[in-house]
């Protein structure tokens, strides 16, 4: 039945149309410059929705499992055999890992290595997940009231899933590693030979395998190399397991993630802040330790020969010795300390 709808008179409000288009463009630009306004509205809505999401989650999760189990019925025997074999192999690796962990601990004690920062974790439950064209996200039932803050890493039992990017009072939004806006500094540890670690940036592109952009173009990777967080920038802790390197169809390298954001239900939000490096005590500086006191350091030859330039005020001339006594002395200490460090490294 053509033209079944009864069409009313045309809207001839042309002026509001132009104004509304202009407002929409302004909104896009404003959102780019000040996305905080939208973010606040989002977390408020999610906080408000949280109890409802908790209620809806259980049946949906049950349905999900039921759907997943249909396909598994036919492969359960092969899956069982494969898991038994994998379990035996993992037990061997566990023993190796324990031995290596003890050995590393002893070496750290012997070398007085700076201990790894302690991580506090907040256990949270996934109450929502969405895969949208411009955002891949999880919603967790922990927020600022539970000490979950933006920027913190989110991991499940297998590896890193993403980062908290919005935190409400009772809920938080996680940007997944596969999201196009995700960029994580990572370290790629060689799995073959004795190649060193390679620094790279892992960026999502909405595909299940995030891309690897190498910092050094001369480095070579191999399929199976381990990818962990590098800790650069101090936002994420070093060494969080992320995945393994796989070759991409486009000729580049990609990361097969260990964690499965589509099925995970319980995650940990790692509360991490890199502790500031403590300044060395005065007595620990190499110059002091060597018995060279700042007062005995002669001024550099260039300073002795320095003559005030013509036309310049007298204040530009070298200051009298009593004025030089304290602040420049520490500068000399720093110079000697850096020289001593340089010697040490050589």
């Amino acid at each position, binding site marked *: *039945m*053509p*033209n*079944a*709808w*009864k*069409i*009313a*008179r*045309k*809207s001839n*409000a042309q002026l*509001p*149309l132009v104004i*509304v*288009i202009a*407002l*929409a*463009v302004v*909104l*896009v*630009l*404003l*959102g*780019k410059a000040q*996305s905080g*306004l*939208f973010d606040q*509205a*989002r977390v408020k*809505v*999610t906080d408000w*929705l949280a109890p409802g*999401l908790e209620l*809806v*989650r259980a049946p*949906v999760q049950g*349905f*999900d499992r039921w*759907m997943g189990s249909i396909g598994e019925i036919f492969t359960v025997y092969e899956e069982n055999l494969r898991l038994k074999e994998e379990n035996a192999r993992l037990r061997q690796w566990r023993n190796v890992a324990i031995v290596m962990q003890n050995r590393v601990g002893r070496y750290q004690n012997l070398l007085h290595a700076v201990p790894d920062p302690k991580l506090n974790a907040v256990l949270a439950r996934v109450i*929502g*997940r*969405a*895969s*949208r*064209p*411009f*955002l*891949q*996200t*999880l*919603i967790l039932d922990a927020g600022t009231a539970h000490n979950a803050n933006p920027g913190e890493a989110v991991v499940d039992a297998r590896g890193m899933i993403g980062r908290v990017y919005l935190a409400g009072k009772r809920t938080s*939004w996680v940007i997944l590693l596969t999201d*196009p806006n995700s960029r994580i500094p990572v370290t790629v540890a060689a799995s073959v030979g004795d190649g060193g670690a390679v620094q790279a940036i892992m960026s999502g*592109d*909405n*595909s299940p395998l995030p891309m690897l952009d190498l910092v050094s173009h001369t480095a070579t990777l191999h399929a199976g190399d381990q990818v962990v967080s590098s800790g650069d920038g101090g936002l994420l802790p070093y060494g969080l397991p992320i995945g393994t390197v796989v070759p991409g169809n486009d000729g580049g390298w990609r990361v097969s993630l260990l964690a499965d*954001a*589509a*099925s995970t239900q319980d995650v940990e939000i790692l509360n991490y802040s890199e502790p500031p490096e403590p300044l060395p005590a005065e007595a620990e500086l190499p110059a002091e330790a060597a018995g060279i006191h700042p007062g005995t350091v002669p001024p550099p030859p260039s300073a002795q020969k320095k003559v005030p330039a013509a036309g310049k005020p007298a204040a530009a001339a070298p200051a009298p010795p009593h004025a030089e006594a304290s602040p420049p002395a520490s500068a000399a200490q720093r110079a000697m300390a850096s020289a001593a460090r340089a010697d040490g490294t050589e």
Partner: protein
Amino acid sequence: MALERGASQGTALRIVAALVPLFCGLVFAFVANIPVSLASGQVPPPLLALVPVYFWCLVRPDLMSPAAAFAIGLMEDVLSGGPPGIWTLSFVLTYVLVARQRDSFASLSGLAAVVGFTSAAAFCCFIAWLTVGVLNWHLPPLSPIVGELVMTVLFYAPTAMLVGWLHHRLVGPLRSEI
């Protein structure tokens, strides 16, 4: 006295009915963006809120004004979590397209009506995709937005039936009085 009371009630009802398209769009945006997925988040949610904008822009453009399309797009933006303003701009520009080609779209029926909506939804998704590309200085991958378009078209028929039912029950009877 009774006549006056009846007239004021009629006015109130008309105002409420006039808000049905806007309210319907907002509710659809809310429902589509509930972050619970039966497919473990593997499938993007449909743009359900676009259906009322399209439908009432054709049938009753006096009730689906540009401002209403703006408000529905804004709701979609707030709830979807993507870059702010993207869906607002897309919805408003799609509204412009549908309003300009109103006679062509409204004359379609059956499968052709689905094709008509598909073209409007494709335009909306293309605007969103392009705007994100311009904002980020590189175009995002195409497959997720195509997935969103496919889901929106798949959900069009049942959503349009629901919107049509609401129109006939709530908005349609008042057509001659507005």
